[in-house]
């Protein structure tokens, strides 16, 4: 068996492959994702068609992430919101009718942008508490599957047998749960999770 060093990325610590910069990944998770709720508000505030929000958010993330892979920005909030703002302006330009009232409001959230955030440990504790709350709010079957898989550590087959459903249904509940947990954790304002949307 010949050695093949070019395929040896055993020690890189990340399973996202050698092509991906681990520093950008960590930075994105640690610094950018916690801004999602505010970023969503900003986008909703400045874009009429709310069914576009998910796509807009994704585009902001892609731009921010690709920039970070070249160089990690010093100031996270200003960078993220400036990116969002420029993207919205670009889109408005390409829009058949430019929604003027929205443009004037684009910088309204610069206040949120400058506000000091809670310190990292507070965020971490708060997020874990919210994660717990989020699991409790999943639809019952989905929640049971998530708890058994992620917390009890049962296999897909064991869960299927215990609940009398097929392994594919278990997987479907899990993927729903994975999406819903991230949406609740990042997508909702942290202050009061019960606040009506």
């Amino acid at each position, binding site marked *: 068996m010949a050695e093949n060093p070019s395929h040896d990325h*055993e020690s890189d610590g990340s399973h996202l492959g050698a092509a991906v910069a681990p520093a950008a990944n960590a930075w994105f998770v640690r610094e950018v994702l916690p801004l999602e709720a505010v970023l969503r508000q900003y986008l909703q505030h400045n874009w009429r068609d709310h069914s576009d929000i998910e796509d807009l958010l994704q585009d902001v*993330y892609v731009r921010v992430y690709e920039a970070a892979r070249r160089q990690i920005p010093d100031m996270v909030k200003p960078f993220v919101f400036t990116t969002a703002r420029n993207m919205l302006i670009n889109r408005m330009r390409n829009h058949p009718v430019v929604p003027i009232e929205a443009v004037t409001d684009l910088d309204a959230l610069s206040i949120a942008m400058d506000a000091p955030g809670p310190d990292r440990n507070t965020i971490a504790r708060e997020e*874990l508490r919210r994660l*717990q709350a989020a699991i409790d709010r999943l639809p019952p079957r989905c929640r049971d599957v998530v708890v058994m898989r992620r*917390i009890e550590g049962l296999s897909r087959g064991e869960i299927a047998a*215990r609940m009398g459903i097929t392994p594919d249904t278990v997987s479907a509940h899990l993927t729903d749960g994975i*999406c*819903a947990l991230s949406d609740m954790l990042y997508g909702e304002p942290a202050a009061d999770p019960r606040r009506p949307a």
Partner: protein
Amino acid sequence: MSDLMFEPPVSARARQIKERAASWLEQRERDEWCERDQLALDAWLSESSAHTVAYLRLEATWGRAARLAVLRTPVPEAGDGAPRRKIRSLLTTFAAGLLIVAGAAIAGGLYLLRPVEKVYATALGGHQTVRLFDGSNIELNTETTLRAIVDARHRMVWLDRGEAFFQIAHDTKHPFIVIMGDRRVTVLGTKFLVRRDASHLEVAVMEGRVRFDPTDGGPSSESALLASGDTVVAPANAMLVSRKSSQELAEELGWRRGVLVFDSTTLAEVAIEFNRYNREQLVIAGPTAQRIKIDGTFRANDVAAFARVAQAVLGLHVENRGDQVVVSR
């Protein structure tokens, strides 16, 4: 899933990618996940940054959900639906406790990007054997928490607290690494014991050889190659290597049989040992009683048996006070 109240407004493109990312995440935690699957995932991720950010976002939350398992008390095989309710009430009970681990858990951030990490934990008096993907076995003693990333490419274990006995399957291409705070043990295939508490760390080698050294950024200079019979005791900034007889090593492993073996052990140390396993705490009152030395073997969960011996054989006074058994001269 339109019944979910928190469902954000949906736009098709992002939604599609999100669902695909969730599906990858779900699949990669299955037992049958293999190198070829990993290559397919790597390919999908490198196709576009949109794929990568969607995956990172879901993984960050999902990886964190595993932290909720840290405080899980292993539930005996029950067969019926009972454990589920137990787990849920445990979650609620430990909600406050979770906050404590959170700081350490998330301070890193990077750990979220590692391959699937499994968490194994035992409660007070617990004892659990875990068989890993690579055929290695780990036996967890009382109040032990460890995390493992063991798959086709990685063999890494973090001992966060407690004590564990490792029987490592031989694989020269993939060293097995056990990390305990700022020290680590690197092995190819062997049997060894690691114990970690707040102030000290002990590694005892039963078979084969292991390398013991600081992790990056840990205390420098000290590194040792340990052979069978070697024991290293390392408090915060020092290291002491000594050699133990096979008899002594066997005694150290008494807990694997559920027993504590004492050999010229002071009652003060006896109490510490018993108290690692039981809610009922043994208190030895007064320096004279604490210095008495005993030999013998006791069941780890039988404080009462020890108390009877203390009374009948050593002539000590024994008093039950709620959760405490107080032994005095």
